[in-house]
């Protein structure tokens, strides 16, 4: 379910590290909690974001959720797919529906986040609350 080469936050974002670039998205668990996604609000390219800080939002029919960055860096690209088809986040949250690409301040920063095994255990625990 959760790609082994990604890292995960407790707020249910993922980051894939590709050299000096980080790709950020929200997890399957997050999209399930939100339900039908209808709007994605991300800052423009060139915006600096900080690990642990809110930098945008994803809105579903029923709720709005702030997105917290897993890593620090500068946004280089927004996913063009999401402007017209935000519902892709429900269909393919881990691959096609990434949110932003970031030029990383420190490619090693993400190592402190959960790996797929730890995150899988973490969401299993969260699911018990339902």
């Amino acid at each position, binding site marked *: 379910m959760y790609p082994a080469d990604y890292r995960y936050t407790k*707020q*249910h*974002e993922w980051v894939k590290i590709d050299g000096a670039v980080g790709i950020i998205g*929200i997890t399957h668990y*997050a999209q399930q*909690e*939100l*339900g*039908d996604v*209808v*709007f994605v*609000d991300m800052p423009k390219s060139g915006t600096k974001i900080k690990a642990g800080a809110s930098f945008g*939002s994803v*809105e579903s*029919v*029923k*709720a*709005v*959720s*702030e*997105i*917290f960055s897993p890593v620090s860096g500068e946004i280089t690209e927004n996913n063009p797919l999401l402007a017209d088809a935000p519902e892709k986040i429900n269909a393919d949250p881990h691959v096609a529906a990434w949110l932003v690409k970031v030029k990383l301040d420190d490619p090693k920063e993400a190592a402190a986040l959960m790996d797929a095994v730890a995150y899988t255990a973490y969401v299993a625990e*969260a699911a018990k609350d*339902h």
Partner: protein
Amino acid sequence: MLISIVSHYVSNFPVNTPAIAEIRKTALNAVHRRLNARMVNFGGWDMPLEYSGILAEHDAVRHRAGLFDVSHMGEIEITGPGAQSLVQWISCNNAAKLIDGQIQYSGLMTSRGTFVDDLLVHKISDTHYMLCVNASNQDADYAHIVAQNINGKFDAKVENTSPRYSQLAVQGPRAAEILQKLTPVALAPIRYYYFTFGQVSGIDCLIARTGYTGEDGFEIYFAPEHSEKLWNDLMAAGSPLGMIPAGLGARNTLRLEAGMCLYGHEIDDTTTPWEAGLAWICKMEKAPFLGSDVLAAQKANAHGLPRKLVGFEMLDKRIGRDGYPVDAAGKEVGRVTSGGPSPSLKKNIGMAYVPPGISAAGTDLSIDIRGQKAAARIIPLPFYKRPQ
């Protein structure tokens, strides 16, 4: 992320759970869980928020049909020689105009002319009325009515009969066709806001042509022990025609499009019918009734109303949600009462209280979305009217 989902979730679906109360369940709780519904604490009730998804459920109700478990709703029955007088005293609409088998939307009033609750008054006879009230208000409503009937003042008996009923809502353009498969009662002659008694699947029901979706549909009331059978039989009859189970999420988007009030959002014990755009359910000619003196004074006040409920649409893709401030000329003038995406109209809509001077259709507003201003415009209510 989770924290913000939970907090906004609460703002969309207010929870008024008494601190020590155990969460209440309808007779269909196990059915919802078997269907893998996403469950939510709604006013102290463990209810389905969505099954397949709010958008799919909303679409089914607008174009085919949806089946809602609304057994959490409360029923209060008023019987006896003084039943009509008591109903007339506590509510703002004119129940004397009802014929047997007719229903009206009304308000349960405080002495200040504000809402204890909104409700449906079903006239069974001159000496028997059944009130359908909001789930989380049912105990307060009952206590309020009993207090007005102190010492048998009205020669009427008031009973909270909620435990005796489950309620299912079959809503959508194919609702009549689906329900007709299961009942010998001819449904076509039952007009909107009328009801009859009859069997569905061999089970005694009160069959009412009412709903909270803006579509045609029926709400049926019956003894809780038959809940699973009726649910299953209705699904079996409706599935081939595209009916799916629908939860509170779709119920909210559907009623918002239809411009219908939700207690705790558009109306509460601080709002009057005039402010809420509900003059059509407030009949001063039947005065006196509870709060009618205050309502008469507010209506006659030369300074007008302090605020008015309006509908708005967002002018960009952002969403003005429940509780967000409404600004005009740079200062806060009101709050969004309900707001969100309109799946049928493909835009973002909402309702809000604003000063009467800026309540005309076409007026530009600004909604404060988490610190950012977003443009909105007042448009007439309801947002959606079903094709006739």
